[in-house]
């Protein structure tokens, strides 16, 4: 669907040759820190920005040849962008009016979509008399009312408080699955992207770092940036050696077999904090600096020769070492991912 999409502003490349195919009914997230080009990409799909290069097509047709008001995409904006002078129902009906839908059909569709987002009771209310969550639902209903081929969500939940955001995430996913609308979400919130999407596109500085299912990107990050951006991780400098046809990655004396295509030499390995365990002998030695209680889990920080390591332990009644104890850390070979040596940017 997106092919070599590029946008540059006078020498600064905001989006660099982004290629992505979104399947019918799929939920894809563009995820990355602010300034990574994700919103620029969305605006190009919506037609509010002209790409500097590349193509966008929808069902085989060139979308760039279509003016933004004829693209038929549903968009939910970060600020909701509701029409303040119209009631919730009028907001939802607007797109249908533009399509010259007969009055009776329009009213039926508005009622149906408002019911879908659970706002039937507030149909005649003005946006300024609604809470953030309700406004958000109106914005979603308005975008869905036109039965868009693609739904574009631009940080739709970032203005809600944490509890409401979680509720809306579940609801958004349910509605999307029920309607089967192809959806592209732009967000900087990795938890949101992972919770909602079939696939995530992790972007950094205008480039795609990885396109994968959330759990795959999490457990097998393609780059140090992805490993750092998705959840917490520990990164160690290591040496990659070719050892008789097999690859071996080593930190000092410790060595693990590694399944990688990288050339031998310096490398970075990344291990998730919840995958690190304690071992009686032979692990990475360290001293427990501090431990922080977080309710359902403990956060432990261990000083090792390779730097400070963060470990997460489930609060399952298991005895934990005390602060200042000397301990040894270990993990399985399949729990780590091997990447090119950490560049200065990551």
């Amino acid at each position, binding site marked *: 669907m997106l092919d070599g999409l590029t946008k540059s502003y006078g020498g600064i490349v905001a989006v660099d040759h982004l290629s992505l195919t979104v399947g019918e009914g799929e939920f894809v997230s563009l995820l990355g820190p602010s300034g990574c080009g994700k919103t620029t990409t969305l605006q190009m799909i919506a037609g509010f920005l002209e790409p500097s290069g590349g193509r966008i097509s929808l069902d085989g047709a060139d979308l760039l040849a279509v003016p933004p*008001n004829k693209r*038929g995409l549903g968009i939910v904006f970060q600020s909701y962008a509701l*029409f303040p002078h119209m009631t919730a129902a009028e907001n939802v009906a607007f*797109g249908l009016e533009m399509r010259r839908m007969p009055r009776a059909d329009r009213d039926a569709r508005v009622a149906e979509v408002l019911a879908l987002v659970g706002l039937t009771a507030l149909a005649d209310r003005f946006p300024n008399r609604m809470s953030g969550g309700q406004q958000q639902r109106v914005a979603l209903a*308005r975008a869905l009312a036109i039965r868009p081929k693609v739904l574009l969500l631009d940080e739709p939940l970032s203005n809600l408080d944490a509890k409401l955001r979680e509720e809306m995430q579940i609801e958004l996913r349910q509605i999307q699955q029920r309607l089967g609308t192809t959806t592209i979400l732009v967000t900087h919130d990795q938890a949101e992207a992972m919770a909602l999407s079939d696939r995530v596109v992790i972007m950094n500085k205008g480039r795609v770092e990885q396109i994968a299912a959330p759990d795959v990107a999490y457990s097998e990050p393609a780059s140090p940036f992805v490993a750092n951006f998705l959840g917490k991780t520990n990164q160690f400098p290591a040496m990659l050696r070719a050892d008789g046809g097999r690859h071996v990655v080593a930190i000092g004396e410790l060595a693990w077999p590694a399944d990688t295509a990288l050339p031998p030499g310096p490398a970075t390995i990344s291990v998730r904090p919840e995958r690190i365990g304690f071992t009686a002998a032979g692990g990475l030695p360290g001293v427990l600096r501090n431990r922080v209680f977080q309710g359902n889990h403990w956060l432990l920080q261990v000083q090792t020769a390779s730097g400070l390591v963060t470990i997460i332990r489930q609060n399952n009644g298991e005895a934990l070492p005390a602060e200042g104890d000397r301990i040894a850390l270990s993990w399985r070979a399949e729990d780590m991912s091997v990447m090119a040596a950490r560049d200065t940017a990551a």
Partner: protein
Amino acid sequence: MTTGESTRRPAESLRLTPYLLSGPALAVLAALLVVPLIATFLLSLHSFDLYKGIENVYNFRNYADIFSDPYFYRIYGRTFRIALIVTALAVLLGTPEAYILNRMRDPWRRICLLLVLGPLFISIVSRTLGWALLFGSTGLVNQGLMAAGLIESPLQFMYSETGVVIALTHVLVPFVVISVWASLRRLDPQVEHAAVSLGAGQSTVLFRIVLPQVMPGILSGAIIVFALAASAFATPAIIGGRRLQVAATLAYDEFLNTLNWPLGAAIAVLLVIANVVIVAGCNRLIERRYAQVFQ
């Protein structure tokens, strides 16, 4: 986010604080506006005699005179007719002007804004005298129209309502531009994008999305223009002259030519009352209309 200090203070002093803070401004307002207004009203209750001058009596004779004489009805009618036409023209010119200004890019926006607000920097008398020069039978406007073949003989702009309306509109348009521009700046550009994404074309966005949202700005600009146009003095005095009296120039005439101060005061008081009633009434209507939309 202050400390608990302010809440522990006695409620008494808290309630007084706003009054104490606005006190100096209220005192200035009272001294410069309320007192003269009351004095004018009291003056309007006196009577005037050609031989004895102003008499220290209190009655409503002047008001009765005004209400029983069709001449005064004509003057007030003309005053508010001019104000209404000027308001309509200023809104029709100022609103698109503000919209275009808002869509311009710097530095052009700054330059054009300066040009639009320019008239406000020049003394109203010199501005109006400039119009008087343009309006004369051999003035630029008539010469231009005749050269273009649009008219045969010079039009009468001086001492006509048309002339007063044109000059007043020129003076007052900036108020609409400022007011509308302020509301345009507050619009969320994403709202226009949202309308486009739902299938709206350029003109639909303009008339169904942008215009309704800046309506409060247009109306408040209109109220300012109406109030200023109805009480304008310099422009009607110079362009309209004594042949085309409006309420403000008539009051002036009574004071300085006929020396009938009480009658002049009564004319002025009625003008103030009519103006306040109309403006406050419109304001109430607007507030009620937009309360649930824009608060």
